[in-house]
């Protein structure tokens, strides 16, 4: 009760502080002092404190199961374990927006502290642009999705959190992903500030690169966590489904990755200034679009908490205003500095990075069209369609071949003007890659030529980066680690899709099912009672053709509040493969529907994404030379 009041009024105070902050910083703008007025910093800190207080009081309401709070009532339950009571705070629409706000205010405060060497006017403008976004989100939270709505009479019990969200990976997935999403807001604000101050320069590139890296690392890890969760919790036996909601997170990742590359060009050569700014704006816009598409209920998915058109319209208007504002600023203020070296020699690091950007934009347009087209068609002609994985695979996979080749060669090039060195060793590496790919693929698949070429390209990147890691001095080790991670990712994804096998069948207790590679024996089931669910645990014995047996115990959970049945897959992970078994209940029937999968190199997909982000982390902490 009390926490509710405190939370609500802190939000209002936070909004008022935003307005005050704008006033104070505008006044400070023309002040001759070199540093920002201390008041601005204190106010920004105070704003952060208020949002934290508000967020904490929501958490307290959740811990105490205070059902006089509507959000708590809708998303919590007394029998839920404490951990999920807390993670339930951001497992719903209102709470997750409060988290957005928290990260927004946190990042601008950190920005102010961390940017002391930067020009004052630029810092103040960044603060102002960020405050525009913050005010927008404050209004959005307070007007359409107040987390502190009061309920009377006070219900005795809450409605509970959707059980599939009661999961450790999903408890940390939103905060990590949001750090990435919202981190792009700083890039957005500061690039607009830099444009108005005509400060899109080497120094700015150096300074903003850290922020790009931070967002990129968190976004990568956030997407990975969501993907891991989907793999074991949804029981579809895959890690990426080209679901609109996944696509929506992939799009800013693609632009952010492009930005990460060309920010290096800016940092070294002071070139590509407009492109950097455009990418910064696009990345944030795509993050906002993601929020809009997910929150408005236009996309159907796990993430659709409630369909309230008012929310969608608010975000849409806000998004539109931000786009108009940013494009307006870009066209009014941006001056391309002609003297600089925008003409690249065709064979140089810059060109290689441009090529990377072209590919990223191509991948982006594929994902964007595949995601938006069904919505578009529904609005225009009310025809209902869906775009499936084949669309994406067909358009993206073939283009990976040149992409991987360029990725292997690009980092070998020097800035400004270069020639390809070590031709001999490159050719040898290439031949080894092709031969290796051919011998592996030969007995495996029908589409021999295509897969050989594709896997050769991946191996080529794998070996060139590996060689670089061992031979070269550690001058660009972070980049090499990331690229190595990427080659490992592609290789494990490819082998995973080629070598994995799947068996789906309906089976009764005590039955044996023979398939060409072994036997599945359904021994028995046991029932178990937990505080918030009853579970049926099945005991399976799976014998492969070598006579090796493994035991897998998938589970069906029947949650009591809300009444939802979920399947918990049982996965035995080894370095070579995952054995995955999931079981589903068909109501009123003695048959259980099971799906048994052997997923080759599954764990390497996660490891390689970790390596990818490790490269980012290393670059973040690299000492300046």
């Amino acid at each position, binding site marked *: 009760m009390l926490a509710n009041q405190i939370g609500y009024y802190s939000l209002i105070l936070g909004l008022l502080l935003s307005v005050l902050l704008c006033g104070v910083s505008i006044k400070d703008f023309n002040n001759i002092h070199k540093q920002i007025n201390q008041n601005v910093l204190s106010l920004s800190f105070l704003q952060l404190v208020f949002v934290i207080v508000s967020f904490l009081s929501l958490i307290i309401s959740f811990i105490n199961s205070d059902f006089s709070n509507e959000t708590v009532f809708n998303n919590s339950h007394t029998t839920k374990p404490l951990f999920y009571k807390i993670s339930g705070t951001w497992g719903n629409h209102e709470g997750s927006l409060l988290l957005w706000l928290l990260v927004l205010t946190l990042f601008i405060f950190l920005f102010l502290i961390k940017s002391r060497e930067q020009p004052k006017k630029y810092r103040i403008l960044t603060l102002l642009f960020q405050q525009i976004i913050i005010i927008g989100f404050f209004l959005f939270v307070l007007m359409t999705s107040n987390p502190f709505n009061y309920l009377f009479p006070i219900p005795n019990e809450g409605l509970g959190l*959707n059980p599939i969200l009661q999961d450790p990976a999903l408890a940390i997935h939103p905060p990590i992903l949001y750090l990435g999403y919202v981190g792009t807001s700083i890039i957005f604000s500061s690039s607009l500030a830099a444009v108005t101050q005509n400060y899109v320069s080497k120094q700015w590139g150096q300074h903003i690169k850290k922020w790009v890296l931070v967002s990129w690392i968190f976004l990568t890890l956030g997407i990975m966590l969501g993907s891991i969760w989907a793999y074991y919790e949804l029981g579809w036996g895959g890690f990426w489904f080209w679901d609109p909601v996944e696509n929506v997170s992939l799009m800013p990742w693609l632009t952010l990755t492009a930005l990460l590359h060309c920010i290096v060009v800016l940092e070294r050569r002071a070139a590509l200034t407009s492109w950097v700014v455009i990418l910064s704006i696009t990345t944030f816009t795509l993050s906002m679009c993601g929020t809009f598409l997910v929150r408005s209920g236009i996309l159907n998915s796990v993430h659709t908490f409630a369909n309230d058109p008012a929310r969608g319209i608010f975000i849409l208007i806000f998004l539109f205003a931000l786009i108009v504002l940013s494009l307006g600023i870009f066209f009014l203020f941006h001056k391309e500095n002609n003297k600089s070296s925008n003409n690249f020699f065709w064979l140089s690091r810059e060109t290689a990075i441009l090529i990377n950007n072209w590919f990223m934009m191509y991948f982006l347009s594929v994902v964007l069209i595949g995601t938006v*087209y069904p919505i578009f068609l529904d609005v225009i002609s009310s025809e*209902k*369609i869906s*775009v499936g994985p*084949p*669309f994406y695979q067909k358009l993206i996979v073939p283009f990976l071949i040149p992409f991987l080749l360029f990725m292997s060669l690009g980092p070998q090039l020097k800035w400004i003007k270069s020639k390809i060195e070590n031709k001999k060793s490159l050719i040898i590496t290439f031949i080894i890659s092709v031969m290796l790919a051919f011998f592996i693929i030969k007995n495996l698949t029908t589409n021999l030529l295509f897969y050989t070429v594709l896997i050769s390209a991946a191996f080529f990147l794998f070996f060139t980066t590996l060689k670089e890691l061992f031979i070269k001095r550690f001058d660009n080790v972070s980049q090499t680690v990331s690229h190595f991670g990427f080659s490992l990712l592609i290789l494990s994804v490819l082998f995973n899709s080629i070598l994995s096998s799947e068996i789906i069948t*309906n089976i009764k207790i005590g*039955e044996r099912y023979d398939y060409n590679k072994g036997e599945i024996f359904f021994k028995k089931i046991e029932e178990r009672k937990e505080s918030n669910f009853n579970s049926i645990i099945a005991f399976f014995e799976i014998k492969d053709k070598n006579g090796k047996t493994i035991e897998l115990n998938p589970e069906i959970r029947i949650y009591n509040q809300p009444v939802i049945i979920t399947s918990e897959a049982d996965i035995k992970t080894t370095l070579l493969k995952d054995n995955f078994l999931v079981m589903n209940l*068909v109501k009123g029937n003695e048959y259980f529907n099971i799906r048994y999968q052997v997923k080759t190199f599954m764990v390497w997909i996660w490891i390689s994404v970790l390596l990818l982000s490790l490269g980012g982390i290393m670059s973040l902490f690299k000492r300046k030379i």
Partner: protein
Amino acid sequence: MYGKKVKLRFAFLGLILASVILTVFLILQSLKENVVYFQSPSEIKLLIELNKKKIRIGGMVKEQSIFINSDEVNFIITDFKNEINVVYSGAVPNLFAEGKGVVAEGFLKDKNYFTATKILAKHDENYMPPEVKEAIGDK
């Protein structure tokens, strides 16, 4: 007539334009081939000729219509006006049950029989896909 630099720039612009056009063409082409349309049982009854393409059918699983053996699940999708028989072998989501909404993806054998390759999982008991809601007309 033009300087070397201008010519180079034109060539570059041409290259960009060509690749953009190619990209758009590729995407649209592939979109045409890979789009899955959604239809209700009544819409299928109205079809004049059968389409060989993959489609989605949505509606309610008819009461008392689920029959299971070890490799197949048979059931009937209804929109309370028309119905269609579905044969399916594959993983069944937990929320698949008689009297609940369902979306099945697959191919039409004829106007009465549908071979499903996938039954879509929905995660919430109370949640009804908008397509299904529309198909059965807000019952």
